[in-house]
C-alpha cells in the first residue's frame, strides 16, 4: 500500500489545523470561556493525533496525546483557559509545528534540540493539569507463541442481527487465524425457538483450530459482541480438563450434539473433574450510560482540494472558449443569420459565466491572511513594550489566490511599521488623553472592480513638517509648496525615512518603497492618508485577479497591443506636423512637464509607414512617466492573460498575450519594463517627473 500521496494530504491538513488552532488560542486570550474556540483547539490536536497515528509518526502522536489530555479537560470545563495556560498552549502549538516539519516533512527523527524543548513543555503541561505521563501506545504486542489446539465456543445473543453484527463474519475471521480442525454451526436454539423471530439471532458455533496465538487474541475477535454472547475458549493442550468440565455442565443433549459434531465420544471417558472456569469467559454487560449528544457545529463548508495547475488549465480553456465563441459570433454576424447569431450570443453568455466561475475558484477570502497577523501583532507589541490590538474586518472579501500570497509580505511590513512608528508608547498615549491600548484596524472591501485593503492606526499620525524637511534635505521636493498628496507620496521614495531610531523591526526605511514596488507589480496602487489627529491609514488597491486584465487596446503597424489600464494616465493626439520634431527631440511638453516619448514602431522595429494621425498614450509606473506613440486607439478591453512561452523570454517590454475575438493575438505591454528601458537609454535624456503620486 503506497501512502505517500496520503502523507502529503496529512501534512497539508495538519498545517491548516495548526493554524486554526493558533487562531482559536489567540481568541481564547480575550474570551477564555468561548466554548467554540475550546472545541476547535481540541479538535485540531485530536485530529492530528489520529492522522499521525495512521502513518506511525510516533513523536507527533505522543506529544499530541499529552496536549489533547489537557485540552479535553479545558473543553469539559474542568480547568479554566487562563492567560498562562493559553500561552503554554501556544508554545505547544509551535512545538507541534516544528515536530511536523521534522518528522513528517523531512521524515527524520526529532532533533536533540526538539527533544530538549519538549521535556519542559511536557512538565508544564503536567503542572497545568494534564496527565503526568503519556499513556502507553495503542497496539498490543503479540509474543510469538507456539501453535496450540483451541476450542472456541460461542452462542450469540438474540439482538446480534439487530446490532448489525453477523455471526458468519466472526466465524470467517476466527477461521482465518489458524488451521481449522472441526466446525459445528450451533442450530439447537433455533430448533427450540418458539415463536421464531427471523430477526432475532439463535445461532452459535464451535470451532476447533490450530493457532499460534494467545487466548486473548481469540477473545478479542468477539470484542464487538462482548456482553451479548456466551463465549468459552479452551486450550485443549493444557486445559483439556477445563473443557471436559465445561462439557459436563452443559445440558446433555447439547453436549452430545457437540461431541458428535467434533467427532468425539460422549460421554467423555474420565473421572469426575472439579468444575473450573473456562480459560476466557464473556465478561458481564457494561452498563450503558446515556450521555447527551453534543453537536459540534462549526459552519465549515465542505472543501475539495484541487491542484493549482489543473485550475490554471481550466481557466486557460475557459479563456480560449471565450475567444472561440467571439469568433463564432463574428462569423454568424457576417453570414447575417439571425438565429445563428442569437445562438452564439447565448453560448457566449454561458461561456462568460463559466470563465467567471473558473476564476472564482482561485478566489480565497483575505481573512485567512489577515488572521495570521494576530499572532504577529501580539508578539511584536509585546517585544516593543506597547499594548496594541488588531481589529480585522471584511475578512470574507475574496481575491485571487496568487494576489493573496503576494500581499502577505507588504502587509506584514506595513503592520510592523505602524506598530513601531505609528502607535505611541502607552505613557505617551495616556499623556495625550488616549487609551493606553493602541488600535490597528485591517479592513478589506470590494470597490468598483478592485479590492481595497486599508490598514489604519490610531497613533499620532504623520508629521508633515518633518516629512517636508526630510524630503527637501534629500532633494525629493523643491522649494515649491507641495500638495498634501504629493507630500505624503514622497514617503514611498527610496531611501526616505524619518524614523529617529531605526529598529530591527522595520529596517532602514527601505520598506515603504519596496512595499510600493510590490503592490505596483501586482497592478495595484498604494496611498497614505493622515487627517490631522486621526492616525495614519495606508490604502491599497488591487485588481481582483491577475488572470485577467483591463487594458487599452491599441494598434501599431497592424499589430494589436494591450496596455494595462491601471497604468494609462491619459491619451492625446499627435499632430502630424509635429511628428518629426518630437521624434528627434524625444520628448514633448505636457502642461509644463517634460514627457519622454517612445515610438512603438521604432521600439519594436515595426515595418511600414506611420499613419497620418497617431496617438500618444501617457503611461506611468513606479514614478516614471512617458508617452507611448501608437497608430490607433481601439478602446477598452478586458481579457484573459496568456503567459508567453519560453521562446519569448528574451523579449523585453512584453509581459503576456491575449487572443482577440477575431483570432488575432495582441501582445500585452510590460509598461514598467518599457519605462525602465527608457531610463537606461543613453540617447534619451530623462528627467523624472515631479509628480510621483499614483492613484487609480
Amino acid at each position, binding site marked *: 500500500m503506497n*501512502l505517500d500521496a496520503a502523507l502529503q494530504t496529512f501534512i497539508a491538513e495538519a498545517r491548516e489545523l495548526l493554524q486554526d488552532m493558533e487562531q482559536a488560542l489567540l481568541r481564547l486570550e480575550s474570551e477564555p470561556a468561548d466554548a467554540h474556540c475550546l472545541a476547535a483547539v481540541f479538535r485540531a490536536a485530536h485530529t492530528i493525533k*489520529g*492522522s499521525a497515528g*495512521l502513518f506511525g509518526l510516533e513523536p507527533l502522536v505522543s506529544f499530541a496525546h499529552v496536549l489533547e489530555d489537557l485540552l479535553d479537560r479545558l473543553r469539559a470545563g474542568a480547568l479554566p483557559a487562563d492567560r498562562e495556560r493559553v500561552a503554554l498552549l501556544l508554545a505547544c502549538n509551535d512545538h507541534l509545528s516544528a515536530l511536523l516539519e521534522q518528522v513528517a516533512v523531512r521524515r527524520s527523527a526529532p532533533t536533540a534540540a526538539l527533544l530538549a524543548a519538549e521535556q519542559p513543555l511536557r512538565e508544564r503541561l503536567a503542572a497545568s493539569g494534564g496527565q503526568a505521563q503519556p*499513556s502507553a501506545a495503542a497496539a498490543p504486542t503479540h509474543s510469538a507463541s507456539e501453535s496450540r489446539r483451541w476450542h472456541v465456543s460461542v452462542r450469540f445473543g438474540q439482538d446480534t442481527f439487530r446490532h*448489525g453484527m453477523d455471526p458468519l463474519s466472526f466465524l470467517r475471521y476466527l477461521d482465518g487465524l489458524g488451521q481449522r480442525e472441526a466446525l459445528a454451526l450451533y442450530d439447537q436454539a433455533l430448533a427450540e425457538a418458539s415463536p421464531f423471530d427471523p430477526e432475532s439471532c439463535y445461532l452459535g458455533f464451535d470451532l476447533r483450530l490450530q493457532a499460534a496465538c494467545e487466548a486473548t487474541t481469540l477473545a478479542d*475477535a468477539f470484542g*464487538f459482541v462482548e456482553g451479548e454472547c456466551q463465549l468459552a475458549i479452551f486450550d485443549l493442550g493444557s486445559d483439556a480438563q477445563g473443557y471436559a468440565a465445561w462439557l459436563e455442565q452443559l445440558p446433555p443433549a447439547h453436549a452430545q450434539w457437540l461431541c458428535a459434531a467434533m467427532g468425539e465420544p460422549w460421554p467423555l471417558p474420565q473421572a469426575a473433574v472439579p468444575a473450573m472456569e473456562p480459560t476466557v469467559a464473556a465478561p458481564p454487560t457494561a452498563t450503558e450510560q446515556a450521555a447527551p449528544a453534543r453537536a459540534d457545529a*462549526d459552519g465549515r463548508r465542505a472543501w475539495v482540494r484541487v491542484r493549482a495547475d489543473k485550475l490554471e488549465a481550466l481557466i486557460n480553456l475557459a479563456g480560449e472558449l471565450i475567444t472561440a465563441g467571439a469568433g463564432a459570433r463574428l462569423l454568424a454576424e457576417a453570414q447575417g443569420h439571425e438565429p445563428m447569431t442569437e445562438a452564439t450570443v447565448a453560448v457566449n453568455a454561458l461561456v462568460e459565466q463559466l470563465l467567471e466561475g473558473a476564476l472564482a475558484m482561485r478566489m480565497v477570502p483575505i481573512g485567512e491572511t489577515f488572521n495570521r497577523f494576530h499572532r504577529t501583532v501580539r508578539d511584536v507589541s509585546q517585544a516593543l513594550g506597547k499594548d496594541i490590538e488588531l481589529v480585522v474586518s471584511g475578512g470574507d472579501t475574496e481575491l485571487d489566490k496568487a494576489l493573496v500570497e503576494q500581499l502577505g509580505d507588504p502587509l506584514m511590513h506595513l503592520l510592523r511599521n505602524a506598530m513601531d512608528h505609528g502607535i505611541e508608547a502607552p505613557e505617551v498615549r495616556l499623556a495625550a488623553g488616549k487609551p493606553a491600548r493602541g488600535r490597528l484596524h485591517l479592513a478589506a472591501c470590494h470597490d468598483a472592480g478592485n479590492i481595497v485593503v486599508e490598514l489604519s492606526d490610531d497613533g499620532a499620525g504623520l508629521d508633515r513638517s518633518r516629512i517636508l524637511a526630510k524630503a527637501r534635505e534629500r532633494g525629493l521636493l523643491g522649494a515649491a509648496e507641495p500638495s498634501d498628496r504629493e507630500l505624503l507620496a514622497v514617503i514611498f521614495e527610496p531611501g526616505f525615512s524619518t524614523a529617529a531610531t531605526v529598529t530591527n523591526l522595520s529596517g532602514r526605511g527601505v520598506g515603504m518603497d519596496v512595499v510600493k514596488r510590490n503592490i505596483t507589480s501586482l497592478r495595484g496602487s498604494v496611498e497614505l492618508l493622515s487627517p490631522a489627529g486621526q492616525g495614519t491609514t495606508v490604502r491599497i488597491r488591487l485588481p481582483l485577479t491577475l488572470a485577467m486584465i483591463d487594458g487599452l487596446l491599441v494598434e501599431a503597424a497592424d499589430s494589436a497591443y494591450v496596455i494595462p489600464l491601471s497604468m494609462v494616465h491619459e491619451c492625446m493626439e499627435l499632430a502630424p506636423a509635429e511628428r518629426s520634431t518630437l521624434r528627434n527631440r524625444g520628448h514633448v511638453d505636457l502642461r509644463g512637464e517634460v514627457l519622454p516619448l517612445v515610438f512603438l514602431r521604432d521600439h519594436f522595429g515595426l515595418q511600414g509607414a506611420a499613419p497620418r494621425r497617431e496617438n500618444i498614450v501617457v503611461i506611468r509606473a513606479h514614478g516614471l512617466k512617458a508617452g507611448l506613440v501608437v497608430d490607433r486607439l481601439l478602446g477598452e478591453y478586458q481579457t484573459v492573460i496568456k503567459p508567453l512561452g519560453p521562446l519569448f523570454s528574451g523579449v523585453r517590454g512584453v509581459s503576456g498575450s491575449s487572443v482577440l475575438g477575431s483570432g488575432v493575438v495582441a501582445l500585452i505591454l510590460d509598461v514598467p519594463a518599457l519605462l525602465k528601458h527608457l531610463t537606461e537609454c543613453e540617447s534619451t535624456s530623462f528627467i523624472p517627473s515631479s509628480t510621483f503620486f499614483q492613484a487609480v
Partner: protein
Amino acid sequence: MAKSILVVDDSASIRQVVGIALKSQGYDVTEACDGKDALAKLSGQKVHLVISDVNMPNMDGITFLKELKKLPAYKFTPVIMLTTESQESRKQEGQAAGARAWVVKPFQPAQMLAAVAKLIAP
C-alpha cells in the same frame, strides 16, 4: 459484487488512508467529511458498513448515527465508530445510538482492516 463502505471523518488524510486500505481488500469506498455530507451521499443507496469519526463539525458522529438509524434502509447496517481512549463515554453513547463496533485512534491501517473483517465479508 464488491461490498461498499462509507467512511466519514473530517480528516482528509484519515479518509485517504482508510480508503486505500479498504480498496486494497476489494471494497468500494465512499467518503464523507461529516455527518451531513454522509447522509447526503447515502441517499438511500446500499452500504454494507459505515466507519465514522465522533468529533466532526457540522454534524458529529453520534448525531449522524442517530439520524442514520432512523432510516429503514440502514436499520441493520453495522457501524464502526472511531474513538480515542479518553472518550469512554463516547463509546457508550455510540452503542446507545447503534454503533457496536469501534476502532481506537490512533490506529494502523491493519487494525482497521481487522475490525472490518469481523463485521462483513470481503
